Each structure stands twice: as structure tokens, then as C-alpha cells.
């Protein structure tokens, strides 16, 4: 029974990743490339009214209007960059799922790498210092003797 449940859950988990929203709006694109481009754009941009949905997944009025606006802009032959620029101009950087790299976001982008590097430096530092003993030769002899005494007593 347990085994069966495991298989069922595994199946559900695997299946869930393949579920994917598709464009449902009625819109006649000029060609397939345009349609693909529009589909890509509405997946890339975040609905400004929702916490975490892209334009494609959201049913809010704003998202619907933005979708239609994007289709129109694609029809007009605007490039992806131009369309993204128009949308961020209106709604701010919030609509970008992937923030642009600029002076405002430089810390956000680089901080993880800086942290990772600092951790590596720390690890190297610790390993190097572990190898070197911090005792003077006299102290080391004393420690050795104490250890030997301990062993004798245990015997």
C-alpha cells in the first residue's frame, strides 16, 4: 500500500512539472514567429496586480489588458526589448521576473557570488591553519608526554 502511494505521488510530482499554461486569448497573429514571441513575452512578465503570476497565468483585468497590448505591439513589429521597455516604463521593474542588471540591482546580482567566494576563502583559511600546529616545540613535547601517560593508565 505504502509502495503504491509512493508511486502515485511520484507520478503526480513528475506530471505537475509538465503542466504548462498556453495562450487562450482569441488573437490572430500575422505569423507563427509572432505568436511564439508573444507567448514568450507574456510568460516573462509578471502581472502587476498579483503576487506571483505571470501575465499568461493571471485572470486579472490588468493582466488581460497587458496581454492584448503585448499582442498589438508584437503585431506592430516592436522588438522584445522595446516591448519590455514600454511595460517597465508603465509599471516599473516589478513586472520583470528577472531584474535587469544595473546600478540599483548590482548588489542583488553580485551578493551571492561575493558570499560564496568569502566562504571559500574561509574554508581555505581554516584548512591551512589546521595543518599548522599552534603549539611551541616545548608544549608539543609536554602534550605528547601527557597523552602517553594517559595511555599507560588506560592499560
Amino acid at each position, binding site marked *: 500500500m505504502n509502495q503504491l502511494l509512493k508511486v502515485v505521488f511520484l507520478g503526480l510530482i513528475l506530471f505537475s512539472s509538465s503542466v504548462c499554461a498556453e495562450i487562450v486569448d482569441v488573437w490572430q497573429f500575422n505569423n507563427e514567429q509572432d505568436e511564439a514571441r508573444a507567448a514568450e513575452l507574456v510568460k516573462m512578465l509578471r502581472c*502587476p*496586480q498579483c503576487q506571483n503570476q505571470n501575465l499568461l497565468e493571471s485572470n486579472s*483585468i*490588468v493582466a488581460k*489588458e*497587458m496581454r492584448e*497590448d503585448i499582442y498589438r505591439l508584437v503585431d506592430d513589429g516592436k522588438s522584445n526589448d522595446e516591448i519590455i521597455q514600454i511595460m517597465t*516604463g*508603465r*509599471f*516599473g521593474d*516589478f513586472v520583470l521576473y528577472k531584474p535587469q542588471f544595473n546600478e540599483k540591482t548590482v*548588489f542583488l546580482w553580485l*551578493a551571492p557570488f*561575493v*558570499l560564496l567566494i*568569502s*566562504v571559500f*576563502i*574561509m574554508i581555505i*583559511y*581554516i584548512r591551512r591553519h589546521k595543518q599548522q600546529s*599552534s603549539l611551541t616545540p616545548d608544549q608539543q613535547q609536554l602534550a605528547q608526554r601527557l597523552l602517553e601517560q594517559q595511555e599507560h593508565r588506560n592499560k
Partner: protein
Amino acid sequence: MTKIKKTKISQRGWLFVPLLLSLAFIGLLFYGLNSDKKQNEIIKPFPSFKAENIFLSSQSITKSVFDNNINIVNVWASWCGVCQKEHSFLLSLMEDNQINIIGLNYRDKKESAIKWIEQKGNPYKAIIFDPQGKLAIELGVIGTPETYLVDKLGFVCFRYSGELDEARWNKYFLPKIEILKVNGSCN
């Protein structure tokens, strides 16, 4: 001897730097997550428009309505509950007579909009009728109510999403209006 010990300890202190950096970064992310996203200071030209003025159907309204004034554009609709709460504040703002209050009636029925204004009073110098939300989407309206500060050259200086009241007005709008009075334009 003691000297050596001291440097050892201060060197060990460095080991905490990555931890402290990580904590600082996490703190910063939390701060960003909880900060007030309701305001936004992207300065951009107000989109050009030609729309119906709700109470003067014979006259259309264009961007020239902003000329030579400090303006706010208040996005509202008769179906919007929060707009009702905000309305009395807008009326008191109108009585101050410091700025031009322009309404942007968003995705509404004209009769309902007129009825609402007749019942509750009119704080607006003019009301842009936008039943399809065309101008609103170009402006970047996310929901109602929303209020934009527009200078005399037609530049959007500031936007606030949500209900306006005296405290928020004093906090967000007044300082910017004082600057506009001196500089003329925010661009």
C-alpha cells in the same frame, strides 16, 4: 607571547565575516520584501490622449488640461469601494484650491459615474472618461484608486496606489508639490 595570541584571535574574527555578510544580505532582502511598494517615482510624460469629459460631453479633454498647473490625476470608478472612502478627502483637497484635481474614470458606466458624483459631490475639475481602460493601461494603472502627480508640462512625477488620506498626502505629495512650486517641472 601575548602578542602572538592577540593576532590569532583577531584573525579568527575574520571567520565570522561570511556569516555576518550573509545575515546582512538576508536582512536586506527582508527589508525589500516588506517595504512600501505602493509608491513609485518613475518620471515620464503623461501619455497623450483625447477623451470625453464626463460632464461636458461636447468638449473633449486632452493633455492640455495640465498646462500651467500642478495637477493630480485620481483614478476612480463607481464600482470601487475604496474610492468611496477616499472621496471625502478629495473634496477637502479641492476646497484648499492648491492644485488641479483631474479624475480618470476607469472602466465604468457613464450613468453610474454621473450618479456617484451627483450624490457625493465633485472634487474634480474635469473627468476623463475611459470606459475601455485604454488610457489607464498606457499610464500603467494597476487598480483603483490610484493617484498621479502631474506637473505643468505634463510629466508624471509620482504615483501612489491605494487610498489617499491626509497623512499620506502630507507624507508623499506635499513635499513634492513644494519642490514643483519652485522648480516648475520634475523632469
